[in-house]
């Protein structure tokens, strides 16, 4: 919870005023609470939450004395003015603060010993500091049934609620899902949903973070730990490329909770998390977690220990008939990738290193245009979203865009084949699937006509249309003040590219029989887009797989080396805006597993050419020296909030281009979305049961009818790349002649329909 807004005390327009007898300075117009906080004077608050919106003055906790104004003022809504005289600790102010706390506590159950919030509770803390110290309330307290399930993930204890309205305002003004409301009035006020149904939306968990009492608690975290027997570690979410800064709560070596940070990263997520990022941590332990190493030979697969498996892997690699390939997955860390590159230059000299992702070549000019960070959206008057659907793929982006639209009236324009999750706040420019190029002159005109526009663009859709990507790059460059944010696909795509790792080359080398073995690092090519091509290329090449969970690649790998997940191991991820941020070690993970970086270093040792470092920090330091893309950063530079990498040059990875396959015009356009709600983490999380849904091919009613399919029927879908069988869902708001699928859902294989280098695809839909 970010109780106070950051204040820049070094700004130029400071004004002087008197605070508790001392002459101080703060920027004019800053709210008194924030100025006081920045100046080291605590003014207690409950309802004030600058991230949610303007002050509402409901809780009355922040009463202070301002000379010349009658009575007491709420410091949350009183701006700093030159020469004002403020007293936050005078007898009058103290009496005001005590009064409000005594009244707030009158009906509060004071069940702190059995309250999850106890020990990290603002009501407790502020009562301790500012409260009257003694209760005089002898009447019977207000009673409610407690707790009730506000949703499958959030428990609501109405007795503890102090009606600060933060959760309601979050729902109404930040997520704008319109679901939460205050019901009844006066002392009977209670938080509820309008419909009476569960509060199910994409960002609900944030109301737990903003609740200043124990009224809203996480059901999966309920009664799991006390604040004094946990450790909190700042980390970064690795489920999508936004790179939200998180805090991991650990107890007994297990991640028990993920929450937004008390000190949010305003350049990135501003403290808000999506529900997947908040609750999917339990998926680390779901079915399929690799607890022990596996070695597969003619006699079948056997589980073994890490040392044994490393020996086996060493044999595989040493006996390889040709150079080795190393394939890095979309969330492999910078350290893992850098070590892989070092192996390719040392122990596995000549190894071909690639990443599993979208070729960078067609997007190189676009990526070289002026970059923005998420925080820059706050100042933009015009935001243009070209392709994609951030609500599903990079969820927290949606909140920034909503904030810009609602609070500042910024103009949001979405361009693409369907109305996105932003439909209610955005103006929409329609472009048929795979035909962004048709809208590009319109987009360019809007960019040219806007003062300081921020352009968000979808990696997958623009990579499929290189001409449109070039035109967009030209338009952004032409407006000297325009900036862009990539809506990327891969949690560490930018980090892998910064190391110069291409997406192409490796599969061709495999297919041509030039490679003798393959190491996969958090990569599952047999389930990835173009999986059929990967299967064909892999053939019988022996595979050493560094992986966290069982997947199609580990199922056939010669050696499986079980790795820790991003909730368990150290590393660095580079967000889609180019911000390098540290993932910190959280849970212990299975005894038989090890960090990916450690496994790779060990491989170097086993192969007889160990790298010169033993820790991820040292590996990163070596990488920062070797790779200019990392801008010479150190762990210290990154700190807890990360640091931006230098922008890539216009010819960076320009040669990383896949085969350009013309899609032709027959059949239906295929739109593949990397929906985090449909991915393995969300679908494997018990907490996120509400998001569990079978994979489906979503089409418009007319498209279904033309293919003689009804809602729920099974469709056979075929493309030049492969075939897939999926149930059909008829959905409103989709264009005709297009099929929408989500990538990454376990048990479904729409990835077969795609080419390994992505690009436009047309499919046939049959019953």
């Amino acid at each position: 919870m970010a109780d106070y807004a950051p204040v820049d005390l070094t700004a130029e327009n400071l004004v002087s005023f008197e605070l508790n007898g001392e002459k101080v300075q703060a920027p004019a117009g800053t709210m008194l609470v924030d100025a006081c906080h920045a100046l080291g004077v605590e003014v207690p608050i409950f309802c004030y939450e600058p991230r949610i919106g303007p002050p509402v003055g409901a809780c009355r906790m922040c009463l202070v004395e301002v000379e010349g104004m009658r009575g007491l003022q709420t410091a949350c809504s009183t701006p700093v003015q030159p020469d004002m005289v403020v007293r936050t600790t005078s007898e009058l102010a103290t009496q005001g603060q005590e009064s409000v706390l005594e009244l707030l506590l009158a009906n509060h159950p004071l069940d702190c010993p059995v309250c999850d919030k106890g020990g990290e509770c603002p009501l407790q803390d502020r009562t301790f500091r500012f409260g009257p110290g003694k209760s005089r309330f002898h009447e019977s307290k207000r009673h409610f049934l407690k707790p009730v399930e506000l949703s499958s993930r959030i428990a609501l204890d109405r007795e503890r609620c102090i009606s600060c309205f933060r959760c309601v305002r979050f729902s109404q003004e930040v997520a704008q899902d319109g679901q939460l409301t205050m019901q009844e009035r006066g002392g009977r006020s209670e938080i509820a949903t309008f419909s009476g149904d569960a509060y199910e939306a994409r960002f609900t968990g944030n109301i737990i973070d903003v609740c200043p009492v124990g009224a809203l608690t996480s059901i999966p975290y309920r009664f799991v730990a006390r604040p004094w027997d946990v450790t909190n570690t700042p980390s970064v979410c690795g489920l999508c490329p936004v790179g939200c800064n998180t805090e991991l709560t650990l107890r007994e070596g297990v991640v028990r909770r993920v929450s937004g940070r008390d000190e949010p990263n305003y350049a990135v997520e501003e403290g808000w998390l999506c529900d997947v990022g908040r609750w999917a941590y339990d998926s680390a332990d779901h079915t399929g977690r690799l607890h022990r190493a596996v070695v597969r030979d003619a006699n079948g697969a056997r589980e073994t220990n890490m040392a044994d498996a490393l020996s086996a892997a060493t044999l595989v690699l040493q006996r390889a008939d040709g150079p080795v390939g190393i394939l890095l997955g979309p969330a492999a860390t910078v350290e893992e990738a850098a070590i892989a590159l070092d192996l390719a230059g040392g122990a596995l000299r000549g190894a071909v290193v690639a990443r599993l992702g979208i070729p960078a070549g067609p997007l190189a000019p676009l990526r070289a245009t002026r970059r923005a960070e998420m925080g820059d959206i706050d100042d933009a008057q015009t935001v243009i979203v070209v392709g994609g659907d951030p609500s599903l793929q990079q969820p927290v982006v949606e909140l920034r865009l909503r904030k810009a639209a609602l609070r500042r009236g910024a103009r949001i324009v979405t361009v693409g084949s369907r109305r996105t999750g932003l439909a209610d706040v955005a103006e929409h420019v329609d472009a048929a699937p795979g035909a962004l190029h048709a809208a590009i002159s319109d987009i360019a005109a809007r960019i040219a006509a806007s003062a300081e526009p921020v352009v968000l663009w979808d990696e997958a859709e623009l990579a499929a249309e290189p001409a449109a990507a070039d035109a967009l790059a030209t338009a952004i460059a032409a407006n000297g003040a325009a900036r862009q944010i990539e809506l990327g696909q891969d949690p560490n795509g930018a980090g892998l590219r910064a190391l110069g790792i291409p997406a192409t080359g490796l599969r061709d080398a495999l297919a041509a029989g030039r490679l003798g073995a393959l190491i996969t690092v958090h990569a599952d090519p047999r389930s990835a887009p173009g999986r059929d091509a990967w299967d064909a290329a892999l053939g019988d090449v022996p595979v050493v797989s560094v992986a966290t969970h069982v997947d199609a690649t580990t199922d056939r790998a010669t050696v499986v080396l079980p790795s820790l997940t991003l909730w368990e191991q150290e590393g660095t991820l580079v967000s889609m805006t180019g911000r390098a941020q540290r993932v910190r070690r959280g849970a212990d993970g299975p005894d038989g597993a090890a960090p990916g970086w450690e496994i790779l270093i060990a491989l170097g040792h086993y192969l007889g050419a160990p790298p010169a470092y033993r820790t991820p920090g040292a590996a990163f330091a070596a990488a920062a020296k070797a790779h200019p893309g990392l801008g010479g950063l150190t762990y210290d530079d990154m700190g807890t909030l990360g640091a931006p990498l230098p922008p890539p040059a216009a010819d960076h990875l320009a040669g990383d281009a896949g085969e350009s396959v013309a899609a032709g015009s027959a059949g239906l356009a295929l739109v593949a979305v990397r929906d985090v709600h449909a991915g393995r983490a969300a679908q494997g999380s018990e907490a996120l049961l509400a998001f569990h849904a079978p994979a489906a091919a979503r089409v418009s009613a007319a498209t279904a009818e033309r293919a003689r399919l009804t809602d729920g029927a099974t469709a056979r879908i075929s493309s030049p790349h492969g075939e897939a069988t999926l149930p059909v869902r008829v959905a409103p708001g989709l264009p005709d002649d297009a099929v929408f699928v989500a990538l990454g859902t376990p048990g479904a294989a729409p990835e077969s329909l795609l080419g390994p280098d992505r690009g436009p695809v047309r499919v046939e839909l049959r019953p």
Partner: protein
Amino acid sequence: MPIMNNVYRQRAAEKPLVTLDDYRAAGGYTALPKALADVEPDDLQYVFMRSGLRGRGGAGFPMGKKASFLPKDSKKAKYVVCNADESEPGTFKDRDIMAFNPFQLLEGITLAGYAIGAERGYIYIRGEYEHQARVLDDAVRQARAAGLLGEGILKSTLNFDITVYRGAGAYICGEETALLESLEGKRGQPRLKPPFPAVAGLYQSPTLINNVETLAALPPIVENGADWYAALGPEKSPGSKVFSISGHVMRPGNYEIVLGETTLRELIFVHAGGLRPGRRVKAVWVGGSSVPVLGEGHLDTPLDYESIQAAGSALGSGGCIVMDDSGCIVRASLRLATFYRHESCGKCSPCREGTTWLEKLLMRMIAGEARMEDLEMMETLFGRISGKTLCPLAEGAVAPIKSALNMFRDDFVRVVENGSPRPEPMMAGA
């Protein structure tokens, strides 16, 4: 039949003026044509200002001054909102003005709209006033048909129309910013001020919001001139005011009096017919329930803003509630506490929790379960609430009870010692 002979003239007092013809026959709709023909909007605002008319909803803020706060250079649409959410206990003056003289209100709102440059007026009427809402709806229809509302009113360039909007039953919606929230379709809760409605009111646009009685006073002021109105009553409290009198009096009802010319005693004993035989005045809440209570010793106070304030209370809405010596002041205080607890919107903590606490304390006193310390506790509780809240509702809860405890401490001590038995039901006409 209410007695409103002056400003709210029942010129044809025999029947309500609910048809346009009757209202015209009684001299209505002479002010609007006059203003449209002869008076510039800014000059009309000046007329309001010079008349000295003060807001009749309770706060008594000068109406013309309020209108002058609207920004002149705003590009946003401006609105006139008529506060007809008359919910103050003991107050029922607006009810009769709307039921018996709806066109005078419409004419007044139209004049205000012309003066500030608005094209739209809203009457936010208390939900329970179903009859009055129908009367107003019908009057609006008649006025539109006659070209008195709509586009090009009376062939002038003035476009102005009025919408009648019914509240859903919440006292808090009489507070102007809560009213605006409710009118916008939101939960009726007060807004943080500033900004004030004059700057950011309805739909965040400049808004003039006034009580029914205030706006209905405008036609006679325009008709007879600001000087005429200013000359009625004392200098700082000019004009006439309708008092709703209820409680232990023989003729409860609405009485229009010129401010400063009538004492509280005359209001009770002459206009309202006095008390039941053998009874004496125990307590009077002279301006609705939200004002400090007055006692028998205050009866000779003239009814105007300054005099009543000097006596320690407030003229408020003019809803005068009289209790004779058969009533228990502690029970009456509990009844008020219950009202404010029930009507507290719950937005700000001191009001939400304070009114709940106050009611529970008084309930214990009535039940004879309180101790003497509870009286001191209650006194400090007033200080815990007062001056801490977002809007004046809680002040309205504190004022009558705090003053009752001051004025009738002996009664409270007796009740703490013995409780307060349920009184005999009052017989009709007894």
